[in-house]
């Protein structure tokens, strides 16, 4: 008997007991749907984390100033400018695995061009910034070391600021007034999109660190060399945790903090933060994997059970088929193909449900919906294998029947 023939016969047998067949498939349906959703949600979450790390800059920690105690009152982070650009230089020089240490100051300011104005975030940065944040200038050029050293009043602007102030006009060479200081625009940053917490990262103006301190942020930077915070970028993820320890040690030493004094700075591992967000998705993904495994197992047992019932019910049919010339292996193939068809149909329905679920979850979570064609192929193939595996025993029972006994059975 040919395979197409057997599949047609299987479909007719499945159709003859439509409800029973559907219920039997349910385990496989749930299992496969869970696999598809799991893979889609897992890869969607991974993709999201990857994108956030990319937009933040990989292997990044931020060292912030603060935690000063004045007269018994512990002032929070950023309350005092205890970090300096020399600290940044020391970190870069002395800590192993540090690729960049970018000191910066940050403040909000009203920016004006022509008749338009806009409130945005102004960063005072140095050259390491673009290394640490993996952020390139898209149009024009970046700061040159001379400009930075002299604290010239030039600026790089983010995409959102360009849109708000300039519309379609070319901002390069234009003068942007920041707190009434005229900055010449020399470049436009490549767009970054939203941050992990949903902020528009392109709503930004960059100025040289020195210019930023003196002319824009101003406050609390009495000491000439102090900075708000330092982004430290490591070469690899493995460098981060030992690196944090060493930075802490180095800064305590540089700030001459005795053993009884608290840190006057804080170090946060930003990569860790993003990974934590991804971990929830991975947990969901694992849960679905467990559901998938159990469902496929239960579904397979269900198929075995119903195939055993079917073989018993159709004993006379088996006897008749044997009498008219079916070989035992024809009977084996018939029931094996029936079980496999049943499982594969369950798999196909499961794919539809799984894709639907994945799209729904992706939409709710605002993820890219990544339904991998390979995952679908694997899921259908796997459900087919479940059919073969759990269908084998019933099929073998059918194939081993004695035709005389089988024909005599009521």
């Amino acid at each position: 008997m040919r395979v197409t023939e057997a599949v047609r016969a299987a479909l007719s047998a499945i159709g003859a007991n439509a409800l029973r067949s559907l219920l039997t498939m349910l385990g496989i349906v749930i299992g496969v749907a869970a696999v598809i959703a799991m893979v889609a949600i897992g890869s969607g979450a991974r993709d999201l984390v990857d994108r956030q790390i990319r937009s933040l800059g990989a292997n990044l920690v931020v060292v912030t100033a603060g935690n000063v105690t004045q007269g018994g009152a512990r002032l929070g982070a950023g309350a005092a400018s205890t970090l300096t650009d020399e600290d940044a230089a020391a970190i870069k020089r002395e800590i192993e695995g540090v690729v960049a240490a970018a000191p910066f100051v940050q403040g909000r300011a009203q920016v004006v061009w022509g008749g338009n104005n806009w409130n945005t975030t102004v960063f005072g940065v140095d050259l390491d910034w673009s290394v640490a944040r993996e952020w390139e200038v898209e149009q024009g050029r970046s700061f040159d070391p001379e400009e930075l050293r002299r604290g010239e009043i030039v600026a790089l602007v983010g995409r959102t600021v360009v849109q708000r102030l300039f519309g379609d006009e070319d901002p390069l060479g234009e003068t942007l007034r920041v707190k009434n200081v005229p900055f010449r625009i020399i470049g436009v940053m490549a767009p970054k999109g939203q941050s992990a917490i949903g902020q528009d990262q392109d709503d930004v103006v960059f100025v040289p660190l020195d210019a930023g301190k003196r002319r824009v942020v101003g406050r609390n930077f009495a000491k000439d060399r102090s900075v708000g915070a330092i982004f430290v970028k490591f070469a690899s993820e493995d460098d981060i945790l030992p690196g944090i320890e060493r930075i802490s040690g180095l800064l305590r030493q540089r700030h001459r903090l005795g053993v009884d004094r608290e840190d006057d700075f804080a170090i946060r591992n930003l990569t860790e933060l993003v990974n934590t967000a991804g971990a929830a998705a991975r947990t969901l993904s694992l849960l679905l994997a467990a559901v998938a495994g159990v469902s496929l197992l239960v579904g397979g047992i269900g198929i075995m059970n119903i195939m055993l019932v079917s073989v018993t019910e159709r004993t006379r049919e088996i006897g008749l088929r044997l009498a008219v010339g079916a070989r035992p292996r024809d009977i084996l193939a018939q029931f094996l193909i029936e079980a496999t068809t049943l499982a594969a149909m369950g798999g196909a329905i499961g794919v539809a449900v799984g894709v639907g679920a994945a799209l729904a979850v992706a939409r709710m979570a605002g993820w890219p919906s990544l339904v991998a064609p390979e995952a679908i192929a694997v899921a259908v193939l796997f459900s087919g294998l479940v059919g073969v595996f759990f269908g084998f025993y019933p099929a073998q029972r059918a194939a081993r029947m004695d035709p005389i006994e089988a024909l005599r059975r009521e």
Partner: protein
Amino acid sequence: MALIAIRDLTRIYELDAGRVVALDRVSLDIEDGELIAVMGPSGSGKSTLMNLIGCLDRPTTGAYRLRGVAVETLSANGLAALRNREIGFVFQQFNLLPRMDALGNVELPMVYAGIDRRRRREKALAALGRVGLAERAHHRPMQLSGGQQQRVAIARALVNAPSLLLADEPTGALDSRTAIDILALFQELNREGVTVVLVTHDADVARHARRVVRFRDGRIVDDLRQAPLDARDAVHARIAEAAE
């Protein structure tokens, strides 16, 4: 050469209750073109002989040649192929598959002979025509009367042009009028050259055969040739009776 040559065929069942000698050194020849009835009460060994002739079972000892093939030496697959090619079974309970229409049921032996769909369809329609059911090809067994179902079963048995039809109580589930019709069909097929073996306990059925082999206790007690009743006479008589 005889179509069927059986020598000292013995079949012993080993049951929990002990050994049962179902068939005891039976020898029998059947020629092409015969219409033979195998008779005997239940337990006489006639069903055992039928299973052996039908290649559904293998003897404990003895030899069985079907068209010169030593059946007792064949594997399960060899037996299946031989059944497919040489034997057409007709059962008391018809044994049609309820999900398939008449045509599908008749096609079934050809599925295992590896014949392609188009030729299967042609041959199945021809076989249904031969038993007078061409116009019922797409009826399911449930939609057919008992006599019609048995005709479909006979068409199925004929479709691979086997060496013999092996009919096990073919009229046992039918009323007497339908039974006569089915016997008339067997006689007609036999006149066309089909070898028919009727296995029955019913003397009225056996009277329609030209040769009657009687079994008791696993042995042949007599093997007679007779002038058979012509089932057409009964059919005609019935028609005449109805006309009056």
